[in-house]
């Protein structure tokens, strides 16, 4: 869907490239997260995809078409790509309705099509449309503004979304909720999303695919599981931090570890020590600690399918994390 081929960017007046020789591919319907410290070039890559920044070398293709092609008008290109930034950038002199309707109006949609679309979108991102339509951005909370920002980017139903730390400006609780809601939304919308963050935990949570950048170069890319279980170098290890094993357990579904058995130890049933097959393995650990047990039962819906023991988890961590 989106292909970068040896993309370079050297900003005028600078000798050090902001982005150097970056190549990778984002598949349709995937969330690809760029992660790395500030100044690593992740935002520059994002802004090159919609030509807010022009690469100094290499090519970017969207659906097989060069974005740098002379026939591509950058303004028209951007109208086909949703764009969400950390500071949101809502128009302070326009109501929520006018903000969300911005791109449809640029695209000259008929008004009778715009109104229902705006309402539908506001409801989609979890806002009460009637309540906020006529409000100005300053009357909204930070979380509500972010939702309006996402609604605005989705307005013209672009197949691609670029999101630059979209949930960076809100407190951790609201951020977690926005992330969850966005992931649920994405299941229906199946957009191709480029997502920039400096937070590796957000990357692991949101990403189908993670691209790790440092000093303008691509360090490692792969699924969250691949990156957690096999970090390419010390930089990636540092970025992941100390809780690598815990993060791996968050990504592993319990059903992958379950020892299938119908034979439940008595203490599990007594203490009601059960988790669901779709829960992450981390939930098994939490349950063990809470119920003071070294084994939990696993259910698929109402049906009991097996157990996970402390030993199973230890063995799993040793296997996937590779070292010792």
């Amino acid at each position, binding site marked *: 869907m989106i292909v970068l081929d040896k993309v370079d960017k050297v900003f005028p007046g600078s000798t050090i490239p902001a982005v150097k020789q970056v190549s990778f591919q984002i598949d349709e319907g995937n969330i690809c997260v760029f992660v790395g410290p500030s100044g690593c070039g992740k935002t520059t890559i994002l802004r090159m995809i*919609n030509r*807010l920044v022009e690469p100094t070398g290499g090519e970017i293709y969207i659906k097989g078409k060069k974005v740098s092609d002379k026939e591509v008008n950058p*303004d*028209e*290109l*951007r*109208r*086909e790509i949703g*764009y969400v*930034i950390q*500071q*949101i*950038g*809502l*128009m*302070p*002199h326009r109501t929520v309705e006018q903000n969300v309707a*911005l*791109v449809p109006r*640029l695209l000259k949609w008929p008004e009778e099509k715009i109104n229902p679309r705006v309402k539908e979108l506001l409801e989609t991102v979890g806002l009460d449309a009637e309540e906020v339509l006529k409000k*100005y951005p*300053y009357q909204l909370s930070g979380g509500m503004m972010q939702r309006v*920002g996402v609604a*605005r*980017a989705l307005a013209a139903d672009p197949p691609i979304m*670029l999101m630059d730390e979209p949930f960076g400006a809100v407190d951790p609780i609201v951020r977690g909720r926005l992330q969850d809601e966005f992931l649920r939304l994405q299941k229906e919308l199946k957009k191709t999303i480029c997502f920039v963050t400096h937070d590796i935990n957000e990357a692991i949570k949101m990403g189908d695919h993670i691209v790790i950048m440092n000093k303008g170069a691509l360090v490692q890319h792969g699924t969250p599981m691949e990156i957690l279980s096999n970090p390419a170098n010390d930089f990636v290890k540092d970025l992941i931090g100390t809780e690598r094993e815990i993060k791996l357990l968050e990504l592993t579904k319990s059903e992958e570890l379950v020892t299938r058995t119908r034979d439940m130890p008595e203490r599990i049933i007594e203490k009601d020590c059960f988790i669901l097959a779709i829960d992450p393995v981390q939930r098994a650990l939490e349950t063990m600690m809470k119920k003071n047990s070294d084994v939990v039962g696993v259910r698929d819906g109402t049906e009991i399918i097996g157990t996970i023991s402390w030993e199973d988890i230890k063995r799993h961590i040793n296997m996937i994390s590779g070292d010792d």
Partner: protein
Amino acid sequence: MDFEMERFMTALLDRSPPHALEHLQLVLIPVVIAFLIAFTAAMLLTRERYVKYTDRVMTIFNIGQTIPPLAVIAVFFPFLGLGREPALFALTIYALLPIARNTLAGLKGVPGDVKEAARGMGMTEWEMLFKVEIPLSMPVVMAGIKISVVLTSGTAALGALVGGGGMGAVIFAGIDFFRAELIIAGTIIIGVIAITLDRLLTVIDNILTPQHMKV
């Protein structure tokens, strides 16, 4: 100088009105022309490719305001002679700076994230200017126009010295003939003109700008 109420009323009600109309023109024409010039200049100077000329152009506007209008008339006397035109010309130069400075400040003050989002969503440069930059800088621009109007209202009194008419004609007659009534009547009317125009612009500003965006 003595003061007679009857003479004052005559000066205020009979003698002043035609001059007040001239005076209004001496204010409005220069301010409108200055607005067109200053606004265009400030708009261009905030475009990426012209930013480098900002300092030079603003210096010219600054000089325009430091030179007394009378000196401008004196300098351009050989080309423009005496009368209404040189007065309008000098006042226009004088009115430029506050509008240019405020328009520039207003356009520069548009938040970067709003512009970034607007561009990212595919607004053309013109759409950005008319839908984002100008509306958001409007309160500051209007403040500049108001300063310019009040300033020009006072300065326009000097127009009479070169035969440009206006309330200055009444005031200077008062000075020449030691008639306090004329001086006071002329001053009051200039004040009324300045305040009325300022209020009028405030009303326009209120219509153009949403309540929460006021400076």
